[in-house]
């Protein structure tokens, strides 16, 4: 998930080495706002060729939640 983590780190304005599945946006004081969500939609589309839904993304609290959405979307496409 390197490309995804690098892109997500840029969106969240944190160091990529800090990111792990249990990385929590609230704990890290990372801004999981509408712009971050929109940017993540573009990042996931570019990296995995799947389109995530904004509402589901908005409900994500940690990186693993996004990864679960990606996995679900990829298995739907498969």
């Amino acid at each position, binding site marked *: 998930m390197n490309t995804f983590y690098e892109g997500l780190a840029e969106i969240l304005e944190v160091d990529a080495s800090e990111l792990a599945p249990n990385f929590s946006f609230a704990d890290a004081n990372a*801004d999981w*706002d*509408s*712009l971050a*969500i*929109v*940017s993540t*939609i*573009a990042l996931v*589309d*570019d990296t995995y060729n799947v*389109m995530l*839904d*904004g*509402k589901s*993304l*908005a409900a994500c609290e940690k990186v693993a939640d996004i990864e679960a959405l990606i996995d679900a979307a990829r298995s739907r496409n498969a």
Partner: protein
Amino acid sequence: MVATAKIADIAGHLPSQILSNEELAALYPAWSAEKILDKTGIRQRHIAAPGETAGDLAMCAARKLFARGVIGPEDVDFVILCTQAPDYILPTTACVLQHRLGIRTSAGALDVNLGCSGFVYGLSLAKGLVETGAARCVLLLTADTYSKYIHPLDKSVRTLFGDGAAATAIVASDDPAPAIGPFVFGTDGSGAQHLIVPAGGFRQPRDASSAVETPDDSGNMRAPEHLYMNGAEVMAFTLREVPRTMKALLEKANATAESIDFFVLHQANRFMLEALRKKLHVPADRLPICMEDAGNTVSSTIPLALESMRQDGLLASPKRLMLIGFGVGLSWAGCILSI
């Protein structure tokens, strides 16, 4: 002999008042001025003064166009104004502009209610008028004042949109090769609610309840009479439809992406254009991002980008462009343009 339509000239106009990133950063504590520039690609937006309308901005753009001397008001035999902020419910703002601009009374005039796709639609109408012999000189005006619909504390849209106008002259040419077209269109009204001013029309007339402001999950304030944008849905729609439009247009024109000198897309914001550029596999120097000083001016971003490219010398020799507009409706359109 059947004439073909071509763009003879373009002029833009921006209102004088400026809204800077510093002013916005002071209102939105989570965002610095640098972050706004970095994410949106916008350093400042121009904002119409109270009482200054889209019709006024369109008039200034048209006068700048006439002052350049390629066409004058006496040449115009059709006025098309694309706006979503008309001067009146009725009459048609384009009719008012016919008189204000000194255009002859034998000219036709009409308004088109479209947003970010509007310039490309306007070009298709102008081409139709010219190539059927119905008109020889179409004045295509694009003008909007979205700032008047935006709540001051809604950073999701206030950081992006600026007011502005452009005037484009489309004239009959003897050149047998068409300079404008082919076109590809698209519409998806199921997404109407994703970019909308819900109140103020007849579906939900303005009243006390339409002015009630509530904060959203990101802390942005708005009432039903303000502009609302669901950024996630608009991004998803754009990433889905713009690549399809590009592919369909290349097929229709029997052209390759390599034969297109510049892809001039609606200047929505930098992060959307960069996401599109990656997806379209177009190098950065062939997909201009020209919105730093004006923001997203809705239907005027493409003509303003063309004007800026001309000023930078990018259009000094004949060029083949692909234009794609996309946004509110949801509506989109693309065309090939030789300029």
